[in-house]
């Protein structure tokens, strides 16, 4: 170790010891950091780059901070500002620029220390939508890979594992994990921006629209830069990995193939992330610009929007007339015709069998006539006797009732009806008739 190196190492140890002895700490609450950033921005944007800031100016910035935080208590704001200045002084982010050391008054002046400027700048950069950290990591990754590739050329079987494989697996993997973390951070920032933009568009002021456009431009610039860097880095990285893989495989060094394949797979996911985000962020960018063009710039008074709201609340009173025609014959060289087999239609099955009901010929009138003719040989004819006789021969009672009036007419033609003889006579279980007695004067007509 040289004398210079020894001196540097001793100095560092001295600094470390003094920090530990003095119990130095930098504890800054949220509000203090926000105030520090405002002070830093104020000093950087003032004409001539002011070196110090006065007490009233700090209180004015604190008032702005309270309005963002929507704090309404004036008294506590004063007290909070005074306490914040004290803390910033104590943590050496601010230092006094005037002669007074003990009293904080309106004449006091402060300037921001390098520590304070560093804290403010880091927070400012951290919020900015930028791919620079990712770019830096990818460049460092490639540099390290090139170094490993050079070492691999001189490696032997004994140190291949330690010097090459372990470095690839541990160091490169750590770098890639860092890359994933930054990618995740960019995703979160873009998500935050995506959720924030509607509020800017709703507000619609010149400043908010301008800020919206700046943010979108920033996003597109970031993704374009990232795409270039990622693709270039990935190409170089793949070449180096293949070189290492070939060297390892040609010398039959163990673990080469799996380790190289693993690194390649992770690198592929990095490039795919970049390509996917390019599509999504550009799409979002286009949609917001389309909105700005069609709604914000053209319809400043929101007349179109109001007209649409009015139209949508009721039945449409107008419509579009559209062409409806079949297309032309297609100018194609070949037009394959697909033949379809026509199947026979299925019909419902019909039942053609009929139940035949045999109906016997109605011979009851004939039988009644025969019985009447046989009774007509006597002097008197009694209706009940004739009907009982035909019932005994098996005639149906209902058929008998059906033919009854006709039969009675036939009987009456054979003689004279005895009107005095009318008693009710039962001829069967269900039939009871009013007797009819005919004093005959000859054969009846059939």
């Amino acid at each position: 170790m040289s004398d210079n190196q020894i001196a540097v190492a001793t100095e560092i140890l001295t600094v470390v010891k003094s920090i530990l002895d003095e119990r130095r700490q930098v504890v800054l609450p949220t509000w203090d950091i926000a105030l520090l950033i405002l002070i830093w921005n104020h000093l950087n944007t003032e004409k001539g780059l002011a070196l110090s800031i006065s007490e009233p100016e700090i209180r004015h910035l604190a008032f702005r901070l309270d309005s963002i935080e929507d704090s309404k208590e004036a008294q506590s704001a004063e007290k909070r500002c005074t306490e914040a200045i004290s803390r910033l002084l104590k943590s050496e982010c601010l230092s006094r620029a005037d002669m007074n050391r003990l009293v904080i008054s309106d004449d006091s002046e402060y300037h921001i220390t390098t520590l304070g400027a560093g804290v403010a700048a880091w927070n400012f950069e951290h919020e900015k939508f930028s791919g620079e950290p990712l770019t830096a990591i990818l460049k460092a990754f490639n540099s390290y890979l090139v170094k490993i590739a050079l070492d691999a050329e001189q490696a032997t079987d004994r140190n291949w594992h330690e010097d090459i494989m372990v470095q690839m697996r541990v160091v490169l993997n750590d770098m890639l994990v860092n890359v994933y973390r930054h990618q995740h951070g960019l995703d979160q920032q873009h998500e935050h921006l995506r959720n924030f933009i509607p509020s800017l568009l709703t507000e619609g002021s010149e400043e908010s629209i301008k800020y919206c456009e700046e943010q979108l431009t920033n996003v597109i610039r970031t993704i374009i830069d990232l795409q270039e860097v990622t693709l270039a880095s990935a190409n170089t990285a793949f070449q180096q990995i293949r070189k290492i893989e070939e060297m390892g495989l040609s010398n039959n060094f163990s673990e080469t193939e799996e380790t190289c394949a693993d690194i390649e797979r992770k690198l592929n996911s990095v490039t795919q992330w970049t390509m996917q985000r390019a599509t999504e962020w550009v799409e979002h960018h286009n949609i917001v610009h389309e909105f700005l063009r069609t709604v914000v710039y053209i319809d400043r008074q929101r007349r179109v929007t109001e007209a649409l709201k009015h139209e949508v609340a009721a039945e449409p009173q107008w419509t579009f007339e559209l062409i409806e025609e079949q297309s032309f014959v297609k100018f194609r060289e070949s037009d394959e015709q697909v033949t379809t087999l026509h199947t026979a239609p299925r019909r419902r099955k019909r039942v053609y069998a009929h139940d035949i009901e045999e109906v016997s010929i109605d011979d009851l009138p004939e039988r009644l006539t025969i019985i009447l003719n046989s009774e007509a040989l006597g002097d008197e004819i009694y209706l009940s006797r004739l009907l009982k006789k035909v019932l005994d021969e098996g005639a149906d009672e209902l058929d008998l009732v059906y033919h009854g009036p006709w039969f009675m007419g036939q009987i009456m033609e054979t003689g004279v009806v005895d009107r005095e003889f009318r008693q009710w006579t039962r001829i069967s279980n269900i039939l009871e008739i009013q007797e009819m007695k005919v004093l005959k004067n000859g054969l009846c007509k059939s």
Partner: protein
Amino acid sequence: MVFASLNFVEIDVILRRGGNINRSDIHLYQFICDNYDELRSFYERFGCNLVQHPDGFFFLLSRGDVLRSRLMSKPCMHLGMFIALKMRDPEITRSSGKFSTAQLLKAIETAVPHETLQRVYAPKQREASQYERIAEEILRALKVLEDLRFLKVKEDTIRPTEAINRFAEVARHVGDSNPAAREALLTQRGVTFSDAEEDSPVSMDMENGEETGESQD
């Protein structure tokens, strides 16, 4: 030759069915831009105007009787206007101009009075089955708007195209009492008003015939 190109076949089918050619159909859009004069004179012979909207997309307007025309149904009109309104909400940028069918149904149910929904989408339906019918008609109208290329639907995600602005533009001017403005809507945007529908032969055809993609109640 322009008319022997497959691109011509595709755009001709779309235009003759009342569809729009948007910038997102880049190869078709480019084809029309490159051969605009030739295509315009071609369609003029059919009594049609090949119109380029200020927002960039192309569509066909009938001027005569050579090509048949039809009127867009009320459900399609209302839904088109509602989607055009939704695209004017800054919140749409959050999802990069896309939304799902479920979100659309929920939004339309919340924003539009029920009476209007019933009159437009289910005029002949009894109260018990109205909601189901309204939802069915909305989905049916969505399909028609997709066929006419006012929007694209992919796996339940709806992305309106720039042609949806036709509804917004007409809504802005439809209340204008100036006869010149009304005439411009009739001749340059293909708009038909309700009072003109009863006399128009096209609307009479609509009463007797069946509209493509629609159902008859």
